[in-house]
Each structure stands twice: as structure tokens, then as C-alpha cells.
């Protein structure tokens, strides 16, 4: 790289180029595309405020799962393709909470309380495994996620659940594929301090909950342990020399990530209104991974800002493309656009040479 020596010598073009370089071309294209969608939306008759509140809603559902990517990226474990493992802990928490007869807002609290120990135990096992195979984390994480989801598919059928709201009516056993949360914690966060102005509605409670977790994460990263974790990610040899227990830091980051994923799926469910079991968590890691990458993170660098920007951009595309594209060209190409944009983003991040794994 030919870095100019004096900043004052930078021409506008150079500055633009370095901006594009640091921001990444694909990211720029996606942001521009979203901007275009928002500009086009009112013209094609898709209510602008409706779209905005849709986007904000979906943002509030998904943001915590994207936040779950941060700790593992910081500790150098790469992108957490094993997110489904945490999601499963969350699902176990949710179903057990209902099984034990909790209802209303209490069921949400209990779901979190039950999911936490499960997530910690699973996360420790997962982290121990990832410590054994440093360098090959991402591929193995993917398959740990897949195996655990397909293992749980059997378990959902076999575990002795009895709550009539959850099991198949005719057989009396085996959980349903989707379980309605009405009467349990459907929209329990979203309805808290909800703001409604015309067609714009903001789920304040969910956003506050995310803000709380995001702030906690930010604060944690600035504690001694947090900085040690970042040091492990950016330079493990140096960190080891400084007396940091590398394996312990990595383990901690994996547990944190798994726990956040568990909380994330619970928040997602309360917004969505349903628990989805069986194959549903299978590919849930991919949207979260591409969201944080779109937000400006790379395989070994991520911040809370990346999470917020990324989730907003990604969910914006998810909600905007179907309506706008449908109205503009009468073809629903949103599916294709979403796949190409999100997978393309992951590909771009994986091929950055400067960030080659150690």
C-alpha cells in the first residue's frame, strides 16, 4: 500500500479511494442499494413510515443475535457459524419455561433463567472444542451447529414434554414445529413503552433491552478482561507473553457468544410471536454473520457500531426489497437479492488477504 506521507497532500480522489478501501466496496454497494430503496419506496406507493417501522421492528428482533458475534470475533475465534448451538439453549429455555407452567411476562424471565445455565454448559463444551482446533474454527463451528440442530430434532420428539399448548394434539407427545406464544411472552418487550405515531410504531422495550446488552458488551470490552480478550484476538503470542491465559479467554468469549445467542432467540421469538423448532435454527447463523459483516466488521475486528449499522442495513434490505421490487418491476426478486448480497458479503470478508487466519 502506498500510504501518502502527509495527510494534507491527500486529494479528494485519494481520500475517496481510501474511504472506499476502508469501508469496502460491497458494503458501499449494499448501503447505496438500501438508500435507493428508501428513496424509491414512496414513489412506488409502499408507505414510507410503514417500511421504516417494519425495519425497526425486525432490527429489534435480530440485533442481539448479531451482537452475539462480537465476543468471538474479538477473541480471534472468527465468525460464529455455530450460533445454532446457542439458539438451541434458548429454545430449551423457552420450551421448559412453558412446560413448567409459567405464563405472561414471567415466562420470558424464566426462559432466560433456564436458558442461561444450558448456554453456559454447551458454550463451555463448544469453547473447549474450539480451543482444540485453533485455526479451523469456522468450518467446524458450522458443523457443530448443524449436528446440534439435527440432534435436537430427535430430542424435540423424544423429550417428555406434556404441555398441551406445545405437543401434537393427536399423539400427546413430541413438540410441534411452531408453538404460538400467545398468553406467554408474545411481544412482552415490544409492548413495553411502545410508541405509535400514525403508521410508525417503535418497540421501545425491545430496543432498550438490546441497548442494555449492547452497553454491557461495550463496557465489558473495556474492562481488564475485555481488553485481554481483544489482545488474544489481535496477537495471541503477545497476549501469552503478557501473561494472559489464551485458552481461558477464548473459552469465555465462546460462552458469552452462546449465551447471547440464547437470549437473542428468545427476544426474536417474543417479537415474532412463535417458537420455531426442528430445522428452523439450521441456517440462522448466516443472516447474523452477514449482518455484522455488512455493518463493517471483518473476520477479526468488530464493534458495537458494526452490529447496529449491520443489522439495520441487513434487515432494511430484507423488509424493503420485496415490496419495492414487486411494485417496481413486478417480479419478486427479493429472495435472490438477499442471498446474493448476504453470501457475497461473507465471501468478501473471507477473501480479505490482510486478515488471513493465524
Amino acid at each position: 500500500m502506498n500510504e501518502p506521507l502527509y495527510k494534507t497532500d491527500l486529494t479528494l480522489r485519494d481520500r475517496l479511494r481510501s474511504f472506499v478501501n476502508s469501508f469496502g466496496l460491497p458494503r458501499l454497494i449494499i448501503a447505496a442499494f438500501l438508500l435507493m430503496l428508501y428513496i424509491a419506496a414512496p414513489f412506488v406507493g409502499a408507505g414510507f413510515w410503514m417500511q421504516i417501522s417494519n425495519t425497526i421492528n425486525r432490527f429489534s428482533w435480530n440485533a442481539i443475535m448479531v451482537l452475539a458475534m462480537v465476543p468471538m470475533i474479538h477473541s480471534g475465534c472468527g465468525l460464529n457459524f455455530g450460533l445454532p448451538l446457542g439458539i438451541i439453549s434458548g429454545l430449551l429455555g423457552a420450551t421448559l419455561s412453558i412446560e413448567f407452567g409459567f405464563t405472561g411476562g414471567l415466562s420470558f424471565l424464566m426462559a432466560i433463567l433456564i436458558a442461561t445455565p444450558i448456554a453456559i454448559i454447551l458454550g463451555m463444551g463448544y469453547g473447549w472444542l474450539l480451543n482444540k482446533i485453533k485455526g479451523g474454527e469456522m468450518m467446524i463451528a458450522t458443523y457443530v451447529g448443524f449436528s446440534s440442530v439435527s440432534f435436537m430434532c430427535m430430542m424435540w420428539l423424544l423429550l417428555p414434554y406434556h404441555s398441551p399448548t406445545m405437543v401434537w394434539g393427536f399423539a400427546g407427545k413430541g413438540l410441534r414445529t411452531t408453538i404460538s406464544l400467545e398468553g406467554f411472552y408474545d411481544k412482552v418487550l415490544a409492548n413495553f413503552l411502545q410508541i405509535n405515531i400514525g403508521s410508525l410504531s417503535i418497540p421501545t422495550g425491545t430496543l432498550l433491552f438490546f441497548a442494555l446488552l449492547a452497553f454491557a458488551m461495550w463496557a465489558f470490552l473495556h474492562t481488564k478482561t475485555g481488553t485481554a480478550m481483544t489482545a488474544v484476538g489481535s496477537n495471541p503470542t503477545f497476549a501469552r507473553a503478557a501473561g494472559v491465559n489464551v485458552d481461558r479467554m477464548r473459552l469465555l468469549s465462546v460462552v458469552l457468544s452462546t449465551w447471547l445467542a440464547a437470549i437473542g432467540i428468545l427476544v426474536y421469538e417474543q417479537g415474532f410471536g412463535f417458537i420455531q423448532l426442528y430445522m428452523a435454527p439450521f441456517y440462522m447463523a448466516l443472516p447474523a454473520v452477514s449482518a455484522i459483516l455488512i455493518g463493517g466488521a471483518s473476520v477479526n475486528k468488530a464493534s458495537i457500531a458494526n452490529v447496529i449499522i449491520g443489522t439495520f442495513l441487513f434487515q432494511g434490505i430484507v423488509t424493503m426489497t420485496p415490496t419495492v421490487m414487486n411494485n417496481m418491476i413486478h417480479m419478486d426478486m427479493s429472495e435472490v437479492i438477499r442471498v446474493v448480497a448476504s453470501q457475497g458479503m461473507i465471501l468478501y470478508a473471507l477473501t480479505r488477504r490482510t486478515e488471513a487466519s493465524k
Partner: protein
Amino acid sequence: MKNKSFGAKLLSFVRDNTVPIMFVLICAFCIPLSGFSFSYLLNEIITRMGRNIFLILALLIPIMSGMGLNFGMTLGAMAGEIALIFVSDWQIWGIPGVILAMILSIPISVLLGTFCGKILNMAKGREMITSYIISFFMNGIYQLIVLYMMGSIIPISHFSVKLPRGYGIRNTVSLLNMRQCIDNLLAIRTNGVKIPVLTFLIIGVLCLFIVWFRRTKLGQDMRAVGQDMNVARDAGINVERTRIISIVISTVLAGFGMILYLQNMGNIATYSSHSQIGMFCIAALLVGGASVDRASIGNVFLGVILFHTMFIVAPKAGAQITGDSMIGEYFRVFVSYGVITLSLIMYETKKRRQKSQMGLQLQREQMEEGAK
């Protein structure tokens, strides 16, 4: 003394072949439970061998060149499907249709393979996850082409292929007119078992090709690249080019394999046939005792037999044990993923152990140098 060495040998044999042994045990346990007759089972396995072996063989060459399990073989499968869509649009039937589809798939496969290889060269050291994401990415492009561009930009006219809305391809494209045309030619039928001789002949030719290819200059280069890229580069091998070629060959073979697979099935599920094919082929290969850096033709055959036996008997056996057929279905999916996970873990731990051993050795040598 002799006894001990035998025990040690047995132990190392078991350790090196954990996965196949595990599968033999699963199959031995499930077959009696499933209650299938021997001839039924044999017929099914032979059918599936004819259907899948070609595809799995396509994985061998990237393993040879050290690029791991080529999840990008899905790209070849897509190329094969696109070729078959054209052939059924033109109403070319039977064996000529299969041959035409194979020829048509070559340029598409080469294009996709080159793309895949170039990207993998930019992501050295994490080829597998990258090729895995490429397959998703390309699936998006494939949908764009097949669902939106075919019929509107790319000429497709036959009503049996095109969606009634005027563009896009139907969810299933029937290959009734070329169904099992290769399998049935020269087939031998005895006691309810059909042996598709011609298919096996084609597979045999491919096996010979792979054996021969290993001995060519290019094959030797690939092995050198697979051993150590830097050493190979010092020896004057164009590493990047060699790696691209190995992916291209794999993609082309996967395209052929997919066409053979689909002519056996008799229809294309346009938007889903290819999506899981890579996963199943890789699982089958690993079940046969292959690892991420070492795979032989023997592994392929053993893997197909073991994996598909499990696949056939698991639902029935699961239903016998638990009274729910879904358990068995989920079980086999779990086992497929579990096998891949296990093999990946074993490969990575082995790699790390070797690395640390090499480091230790280097340290020792340096100490000796210092002592002198």
C-alpha cells in the same frame, strides 16, 4: 511381546478407521431391525452406488491438491442441471440427451470452477468454509438465472419446462424420456436385483482416469501443492494455476455426476436437487474412511455402501425402536452431519499435533546447533 504389538496394531487400526467401524456397527444393528429382505437391500444399494459414486469421485482431486473437501461441487451440480434444462427444452431424449447435456455442462462447469478456484486462491487456509459459502452464493445466482432469466432473456420455450407465467423454470422438470436410459442399457437383472452395467463401466473408466491422472505431471504437481505450497512454488510449480485446474476438474466431474444422478432419478427438482448434494457426497466419502487430506477410490466405494445402507435402514429401524418414523429420518441427518463434524475435528487436531511436533523438532535441532 508379539501379542502386545498385535494389540497396538489393532488399536491403531481402530483409531485410523473410527468412522467406518462405527458405521459398520450402526448398520449391523439397524439392518435386522429394519426387516428389509436381503435382495431388496442389495438392489437399493446397487442403485445408489450407480447413482452416487461418480459424484463422490469428483471430490478426490481437490483433496489431492490439499484444498480439502470441495463443498463447491454444488457448482458442478448446478451446471449439470442447467444443461439438462436446455436438453429437455430442446426435447433431446435418451442417451443422446445425456451425452449432449454432458457436453453442454462442460463450459458452464469450467466457468464456475474457474471462478471458485480464483476465490479459493484468495482464501488460502480456509478453503472449506469459503467453498461452502460460494455454494450458497452461487445458489442465489442460479436462482436468478433459472427463475428469472430463463424464458425472458435466455430462450426457453417448451411448455413442459417453462412456468406458465412466461419466464422461469418449473419446480420440477421431468426427465421421463431419458430416465435410467444409461442404467437400463446392458443392465443385468437377477432375483430382483438390477445391475446397471453401463453405469458401472462409466464409473470404472473414471476410476482409471483418476489413477492415471495421479501419475501425470499435473497430478504430481497437485500432490506437491497439497503437501506444501511454498515448497511446490520453490520447485517452479505454478501453485495458483494448479489449484484452479484441480477445482475445475472437480467441478466438471461433478457436473457429469449430477447428470448421471438425475437420469437415474428421472426428474430434476429445479431449486433443491443440488442444494444438499455436496453435503451427502462429502458425508459418504468420510464414512468410507477418508479424511480431509487423504482419500482413495476405495474410500468412495466403502463409503457409499455403508452410508447408504444406513440411509435406507435408519427410518425403518428408528420406527421399530421408538414407534416414530421421523426419529430415524432425523437420526440419519444427524449422523451425516456428525460424521462430517467428527472428521473435521480429527483432521484439525492431527494437523495441530503435527505442527507442534514439527515445532519441537525444530527447537531441538536449534538447541543442538547451539550446543555445537
